[in-house]
Structures are given as C-alpha cells and as structure tokens.
C-alpha cells in the first residue's frame, strides 16, 4: 500500500512537473516577447497554449547528429545526467502538508529524506557533470569552453550556496526540508530572518541554473550555443528541458527554504476544513514557485551577462564572504536569544 501511494505520488508529481516545465517555456517566450514589445507565439491553439506540444513534436522528428570525432557514449549520456539531476532534486521538496484522502494520511512530498538539504546539494552539483561532459565529448572548441566555464562557475557558486543554507539549518535545527518548512510558520519566513543568506542563495541559484546574468556556459554571442552546440533533436530537447526543469526546481527550493514553502501565514486560524486547508497550501506553494520563476525570467531579460572575471570576482570576493558573514551573524543572534 505504501509503495502504491509513493508510485502514485511519483506519477502525479512527474506529470505535473513536466507539464509545468513545458508551460514555463511558453511563459518565458511570451513574457520575453512582451518585454521586447512583441507578441510571441500565439498561433498554435488559443494564444499559443499548444506551442510546447508542437515544439516537442518538432524536436522528436529531428535527426540526431553526432559529430565524427565525438565520444559517442558520453555524448549520448551527458543530457541524461542533466535531466536526471534536474528531476531528482524535486523528489525531496515538500509541496504541501499532510492531506487526508480515502482515510489515509498522505504526506505531500515524494521522499522525506532526513538529510534533504544535503541530498539537494549533492544532486545540484551532479548536474554540472552533464554540462561539462557534453562540452568535452562534442569535440568542439566552443562546447569545450562552455563546459569548462560551467565547471568553474558551478564550483565557485556551490560554495556560497551551501554556506547560505547553513544559516537556515542553524535556525531550524534540522536537515529535513519538511521540518524547515514547518519552522517557518506565521511570518517567520527565512527570507525575513535571513536577508543576506536569501540574497546569496538566490544569486547562487541563478549561477547554478546557468540563467542570465550567469549564462556563460552557453553565452550565445561568444560560444555559438556553448556546451550544447553539437546537439540536435531529442538530445538537445533534453538539455532544454533540463534548463527549465532546473529553473523550476530552484524556484521550488527557494520557496521551500526561504519563502515559507507551502505555509500560508496564520491559515490555521481561519477555520477552514483540514482537507481544503491542505489544498490551499499546495496552491500557495505553486503560486509562490511560479512567482519566483517569473522573477527568474524577468531577470533574464533585464540584466546583461557578466564577464567571466567579474563572475569569478563576484563569486569568491563577494558571495563567499557574505555567506560566511551570514553564518556568523546567525550564530551570534541565536547565542544571544537562547
């Protein structure tokens, strides 16, 4: 029975997640068009709602080309690593409180891992292998440069990302994500308690997902398309999917760690039925996540890309000291309060 519940949860979350990713792509295209005073895709279906479907069909129909001197195995394997790393992280994110369905208490989280935060950090850094290997195996100088940049960038920003999370762990006293969310009841959201950590984490999340202003691995003006220059068809589609899946997962992570997860401030006191309360909480989680996604998109069309040395300078000379400072401050405040 337990296994069945978990399987159903996996199926529901996977389908919902992939559909959302597809529509995030559409949202990005429409929003980008709006920002550039264009209209964007609005032909396939009403206002372009079937556009993601058409894109997928197009990508599947395309020929799969592998460069002559490429390492065939790694070339095929790299996008798979990318997409797995992007999807697995979502498994530990709690998207709701427990809900009562058919007399069963169901926890709205696929896997409640007791080292959730570590799990996320581990898989987030796994994603860089996909990018680096794809760059290396393509046997193309632009791809290689993209892969190299990705590796250096991810290592630099992984540090400040991990360090900013430590502040939260100190406050919540646990590594479990559902307990971290539970600790953020009322307005005790971590973005209010930890403003510095919030900023460093968000910046690191941008760098981890390779989104502008940190999209150096694919910097199209200098590197053609960066690490996925030599990819076509479905394999390119996997990278594309991984990029947006990463963005969605990061947004969900930011929501969980800093914006109170599924918490609606003081919702328990409204006197709603427990079932509907859970439903509203899931909806709150989705709305918060989508708002963060919109923030990601708007930032992409607002801020130009960093130069490579600026990126490194920001990572090592600004983000790292700031996140260490955050740990110190959090420790001091906790010491005086207790």
């Amino acid at each position, binding site marked *: 029975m337990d296994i069945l519940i978990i399987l159903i949860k996996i199926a529901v979350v996977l389908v919902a997640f992939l559909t959302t990713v597809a529509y995030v792509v559409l949202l990005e295209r429409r929003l980008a068009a709006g*920002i550039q*005073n*264009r*209209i964007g895709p609005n032909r396939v279906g009403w206002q372009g709602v079937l556009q993601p479907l058409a894109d997928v069909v197009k990508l599947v129909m395309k020929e799969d080309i592998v460069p002559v001197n490429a390492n065939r195995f790694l070339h095929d394997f790299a996008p798979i690593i990318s997409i797995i790393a992007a999807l697995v992280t979502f498994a530990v994110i709690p998207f709701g409180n427990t809900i009562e369905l058919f007399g069963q208490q169901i926890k709205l989280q696929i896997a409640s891992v007791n080292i959730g935060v570590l799990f996320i950090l581990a898989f987030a850094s796994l994603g860089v292998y996909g990018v680096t290997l794809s760059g290396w195996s393509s046997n193309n100088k632009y791809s290689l440069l993209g892969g190299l940049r990705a590796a250096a960038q991810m290592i630099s920003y992984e540090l400040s990302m991990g360090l900013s999370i430590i502040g939260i762990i100190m406050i919540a006293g646990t590594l479990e994500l559902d307990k971290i969310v539970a600790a953020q009841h009322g307005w005790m959201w971590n973005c209010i308690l930890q403003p510095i950590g919030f900023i460093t984490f968000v910046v690191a999340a941008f760098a981890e997902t390779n989104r502008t202003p940190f999209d150096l691995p694919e910097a199209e003006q200098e590197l053609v398309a960066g690490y996925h220059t030599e990819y076509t068809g479905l394999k390119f589609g996997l990278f594309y999917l991984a990029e947006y899946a990463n963005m969605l997962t990061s947004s969900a992570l930011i929501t969980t760690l800093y914006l109170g997860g599924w918490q609606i401030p003081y919702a328990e006191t409204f006197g709603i039925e427990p079932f509907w309360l859970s439903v509203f909480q899931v909806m709150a989680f989705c709305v918060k996540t989508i708002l963060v996604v919109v923030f990601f998109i708007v*930032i992409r*069309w*607002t*801020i130009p890309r960093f130069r490579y040395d600026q990126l490194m300078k920001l990572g090592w000379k600004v983000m790292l000291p700031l996140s260490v400072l955050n740990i110190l401050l959090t420790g001091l405040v906790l010491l005086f309060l207790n």
Partner: protein
Amino acid sequence: MKSNGQLKITHKKDLSFFEKLYITEIFKGIKLTLTQVFRPKFTRQYPEERWNPPASFRGRPVLVEQDGVERCVACGLCARVCPALAIEVQASETEYWKERYPVKFEINMLRCIFCGFCEEVCPEEAIVMSKEYELTFYSQEEAIFGKDKLLVPAEKLKDRLEFLRKYR
C-alpha cells in the same frame, strides 16, 4: 570651456553606495522591463494584416499591358542590362503601330534581384516594378514567369507609373 581657453575637466560622478550595492539597480531595471509589457506591440500579424507598400517599393517586375497588348517592343535592352541575367526576350513582328512585339518574354524570379534596372532602361515604360512581394514556388519551373503572369493592365500600375513620371 573656461574664459582663458583651458578645458574644464569634469569628473564623472562616482556611483553612490546604493548604486554599488547593485540590488536597487536591479529592481529599477525590472521596473523598466516590466513596463514594456504593457506598451503597444510592434508586431504585424502577417497573413491577416498585410502591408501595403508605397509607390517607391520595388516588388516583382511586370509588363505593362495597354489596350489589351503589351507596350514592350522587344528591344532587348532589359535583358541586356539585367545584372542577374533573369530576362529572356524573343522578338517578332506584329500588325500594330509598334511593329515589334515579344513572342516570348520570361523572367526567372529565382534569379531576379529586384534592382529595377530593367524598368530604368526600358525606352517604352513597358516593364515596371509592381507592389507584389509574395513570391513562393514549389518547383524551379514554376519560378519562371511567362507573359501570362507578367502582363498587368496599366490601370493597376497607376501608382508606380505616376511615381516614375514624377521622380525620374
């Protein structure tokens, strides 16, 4: 400039503390980009909304048809001047006052570069550039326009003919 002729050196104002923090600037930028979303769009919804070119537009070259016959006297100047070698003319005699006419007049629309030289060189104002810009074909043979497709009554080309008389 100062009165004694020396250049006054002005230093660029340093960024203020908040500007250096970068975060406030990011939100200013976001405000700018988000206001663009609500501005009017520039997009033309093409197949439904078409563009009506002005008279100076050089679309596909056409032969002017007057009183049911082409004005062309098959002098071959246009075929001679055409830089893309797109035109082929074969002349023959006719009963009309103009004595000569083209039995065969073909423009290969895959070769034509819409330079308008043929229109410029024509002594009879017989070939002019029209406003048509939608030229698509399924095969190369289709792209070779014979007299059937090239002949257009002079009334339909009034815009262009007037333009030519006024500005050339």
